[in-house]
């Protein structure tokens, strides 16, 4: 199915929870409201018309101009061939976009739908600060429950990929200052 058809199908099933879609791009994507996302994800995986069994990637984006953070889920549906010897076939692919406000970025986890989401969501929390609720590998931090960090140390402050991230001046006594005596540039 083309991305347009998948969007039509989702709109028929979930109505108001499907928000916005972009097709005139190299990366066609459908917007889904955060509160309905696990339900939509389960439908995408289990329904015979969609059958998205492979979560390829989760990309977290900081859209400073819209004041939102956004997680993009790239999905593939692959299936075994009808006859024995041929390779697996690609049925179709789609990208799902879940946008949340910057000041309260919470998206329900889909790690129980696709196990691949587990580490991707931990990475998205670590680097972008999107809190995935009910993540199987969660811990309690100063601001409540969140997925465990995966690349940065557990006591790291801030989320490096945010556009307004400030580089730390030091970490456990290790100064983050260049030889010229200047601090690192703030991007």
């Amino acid at each position, binding site marked *: 199915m083309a991305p347009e058809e998948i969007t039509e199908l989702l709109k028929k099933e979930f109505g108001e929870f499907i928000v916005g879609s972009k097709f005139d*791009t*190299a*990366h066609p994507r459908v917007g889904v409201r955060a509160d309905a996302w696990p339900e939509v994800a389960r439908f995408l995986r289990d329904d015979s018309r969609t059958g998205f*069994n*492979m*979560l*390829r*990637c989760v*990309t*977290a*984006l*900081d859209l400073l101009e819209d004041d939102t953070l956004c997680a*993009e889920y*790239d999905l593939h549906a*692959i299936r*075994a061939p009808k006859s024995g010897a*041929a*390779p*697996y076939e*690609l049925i179709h692919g789609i*990208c799902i976009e879940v946008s949340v406000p910057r000041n309260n970025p919470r998206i329900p986890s889909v790690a129980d739908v*696709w*196990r*691949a989401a*587990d*580490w*991707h969501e931990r*990475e998205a929390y670590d*680097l972008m600060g999107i809190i995935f609720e009910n993540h199987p590998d969660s811990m309690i931090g100063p601001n409540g429950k969140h997925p465990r960090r*995966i*690349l*940065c*140390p557990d006591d790291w402050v801030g989320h*490096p*990929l945010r556009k307004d991230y400030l580089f730390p001046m030091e970490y456990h006594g290790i100064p983050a200052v260049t030889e010229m005596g200047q601090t690192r540039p703030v*991007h």
Partner: protein
Amino acid sequence: MADVVLEALPDINADLSAEMLADPQQDFPTEEMLVNMGPQHPATHGVLRVVLRTDGEMVLEAVPHLGYLHRCAEKIGETLAPYQYIPYTDRMDYLAGMNNNLAFAEACEKLSGLEAEISQRAKLIRIIFAELNRIASHLVAFGTYGLDLGAFTPFLYAFREREYILDLFESTCGARLTYSYITIGGVTDDLPDKFVDVTREFLDYFEPKVIEYNNLLTHNHIFVKRTANVGVITKKDAIDYALTGPVLRGSGIQWDLRKLPGSGYEDFDFEIPFGRGEKGAVGDCWDRYYVRICEMQESVKIIRQALDRLAGTEGQEVTHKKGKTLKLPADEIYHEIENPRGQLGFMIRGNGSVIPDRVKARGPSFCNLSVTERVCSGVLLGDMAAIIGSIDVVMGEVDR
């Protein structure tokens, strides 16, 4: 001399109850212990740390801890022009630099519409180098896997052949490990004189070597005992964890991005090797290992075909002049290619200027490694090295 009265030795089982003595399982009471494997362990192929909860020789739980090589390459991508970012992609999967360059370059070209202007010769050169690097990368995987399991000789054999490939790379672009040769708009330079002849010579030399590897390691009785039926990944798990590359194909799923339309490999004739469970169950360590061996042979086939097609393309421009000053449109793309370790994807979002808004790399090793937690529960401690080695991770790419 006084009589020495020998005292009866105390009964060592005196403090055990009758039921405990009757149950042979209770002979050696065990307790759980946490074992820290890595980050400086030779079998973890880099700085991977796995915390094992063990009971005797059994591993009950294995939790990988990453991030020792984390450089936040994605943040660096937001401060550089795409052309400047190419050298950073080398350093992700440093055993397959060419393939990493290719993935990023293709993503940028597809996003900006430069793809149609790449010459046929540049495309063929890219395929030749991507496949040569696949062989070099699988040789390291093959050699170090033997090393993990106590076979030292195959490692030397593998590095002997890899040396020839690195010499070919050096003669073309000057570098032996981090090439930055495949770049946006084609490749940085044309092939040196006699490259085609030397490469053909290498392929003729290399093909029989694979048979030697099979005799040396693949069908070695000890090796098969260590790898067959160990660390089985089912088809369902493989797709659910989004495993890719030889790890996915080892589980019996014949899936390769190079067979999809638009990959550039459409009119090449090659097979997709996949695990058949020849020595044990489908998806065991031996299957994953053997898929790599077969892939080297398929790559040889592809390179031969590409070399044949190079004839008649001499003189074509291999470096597009727009590459260095490429401006990315205000749009985004997610593009994946088949790396030696699996599907390497780049998500790039441009904003109309030279510097992109966001660069995201999906490393195949990162996703493949996530399955260890599932596979490594309930295995023997000695099998940990076999399982982690068969997944073949490069930590530079896991941590990015």
